[in-house]
């Protein structure tokens, strides 16, 4: 049992991050805190990809004729890390749009608290 937890601790960490992110988005009333929850959620997914591709004692994945490619496990897989560079950029853009909308909402209603907002909208 303990091995199961210790052997997969990176995944448990990811799950906890996803849960914190969902909690922030569902329970918190402030729109900025919701956005922070969103950011944590995305970070959870990004860290999942990064931890999946991690190997101990592996070397750079350079394909050359002189290098022996006998053991695949001796090479890092750089692809998930590269994908996550793109995902981080997507996350930054999402945050940008979210904060632009938050500024717009604050200018119109003068509050960022969801319950007050709903009261003012009605």
């Amino acid at each position, binding site marked *: 049992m303990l091995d199961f937890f210790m052997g997969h601790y990176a995944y448990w960490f990811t799950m906890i991050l996803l849960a914190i992110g969902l909690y922030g988005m569902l329970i918190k009333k402030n729109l900025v805190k919701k956005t922070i929850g*969103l950011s944590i*959620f*995305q970070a959870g*997914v990004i860290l*999942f990809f990064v931890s999946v591709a991690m190997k101990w004692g592996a070397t750079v994945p350079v394909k050359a004729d002189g290098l022996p490619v006998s053991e695949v496990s001796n090479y890092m897989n750089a692809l998930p890390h590269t*994908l996550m560079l793109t*995902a981080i950029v*997507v996350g930054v*853009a*999402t945050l940008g749009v979210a904060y632009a909308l938050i500024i717009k909402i604050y200018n119109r209603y003068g509050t960022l608290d969801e319950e007050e907002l709903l009261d003012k909208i009605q």
Partner: protein
Amino acid sequence: MTGSNIPALIPATYILFAILIPVIGLWRSEITRALALLGSGIATFLSALGFINYIQSGEVIRYYFGGWMPPIGIEFVYDGLAAFIVLVINAIAFLVLIHSKEISKLEFPGRKMPYYTISMLMMLGFNGMVLTGDLFNLYVFLEISSLSSYALIAIGSKRAPYSAFRYLIIGTVGGSLYLLGVGFLYTVTGTLNIIDMHAMLPQVIGHSAVVGALILMVIGVGVKAALFPLHGWLPDSYTFASSTSSALIAPIGTKVAAYILLRVMLFLFGVELIDAQLPVTTIVGIFAGVGILYGSIMAIAQSELKKMLAYSSISQIGYIIMGISLANPFGFIGAVLHVLNHALMKALLFLVSGSLRTKEGHSLITKFDNSYRKKYPWTMVAFTTAAISMVGLPPLAGFFSKWYLALGTIENSNWMLLAVILISSLLNAVYFFRILEKVYLNNPDAEEADDAEAVSPQNNEVGFSMMFPMAVMAIGLLVVGIFNAYIVNVIFTMFPAGF
């Protein structure tokens, strides 16, 4: 120009104009609409060319970016289904952009340049989602289209930014869940290419990560498609956005997401593997059926035309997803045909509500009366065509997709979903005929009173830029209905393996 470059040229056109419009719009904002029309016109022309090429030769174009062969490189797969969907969404976008002339003056004056730039970016994302053959590339295009649609929805009434923010939160969670699902699949197969992964999945189908990935991807894409329990963002977003934004997003956005669901369920997993560990198709079918009824009933309860259309969208997207979940040839034909039909019908209905908003300043159903048929005779004809097609009366397009869906449910002996189709057609009739009744049927007492005191309403028909796209779509509904046998023959060549 050879046909083999068409898949790359379509998104390239949009990205070129997404850059050109802000640059030129800085000193000449009045020609931004002409540029946007040019951009989407070129893209429509290219996709029509590609589709004709497909019908004549039947060949699938696989475009390798940078010359890298898949699975290492990224490819665009321009098969029959992608060619068809790309043509539909580009043609609809072109028509809606023609219609946007008056609304953009009225609802967001002075902000035309950002509007047209963002709509070009959104179309880039949607075209990329349809064309790409790579799961991670699909995520990137999904986020491009989503971010642009958040911005488009935020243009509009006072409440629009708040509904856009809610959509942003829900939509980004959906996108992230999809990405997590892709990650699960990548860890067990080591590839991101859809065709390559389809070939590898039979070896790993017993792995629990594959089930998790399927569930995550269906939920993630389901959020974007507004599948029933995940539809919460849709009604407010469509209602409070500017009329031209909702006319652009409603017919295209959810259809493309449903298309991704089709790709994942029937092309990536395939008919044999989709139900290997969980009865995914049955579960999705149940949710689609509940969504159809829920959307129709909620639409009856609405007193605002745009909100009614938004709920009706939830119900109609249920038809498409139901057709996918049947996983048989008739269901597939019904789903693909309904993508075309619903795109035409819903775009037309949103354009009518936009035209009414321009002329009357509102689109409240309670204020509709029989003066509308004198003031806007042709707009109302277009509305009636779309409404009858939504209900599903035979000469119009809407009947045929429902017919194939019904055949699909019979083939699977799924009597519950057959009942859902029939009941929801009746519910559609209820919420559209109450408007037609207000517009076309006279209350005799009221008319005498009207004749006595009020001046008879003048013909106040909308201008050419609004009439033209509505007329094309209304005629399109009739043409698609009459010539549906030809379209179905083409759809026969698009079947995934295993049918």
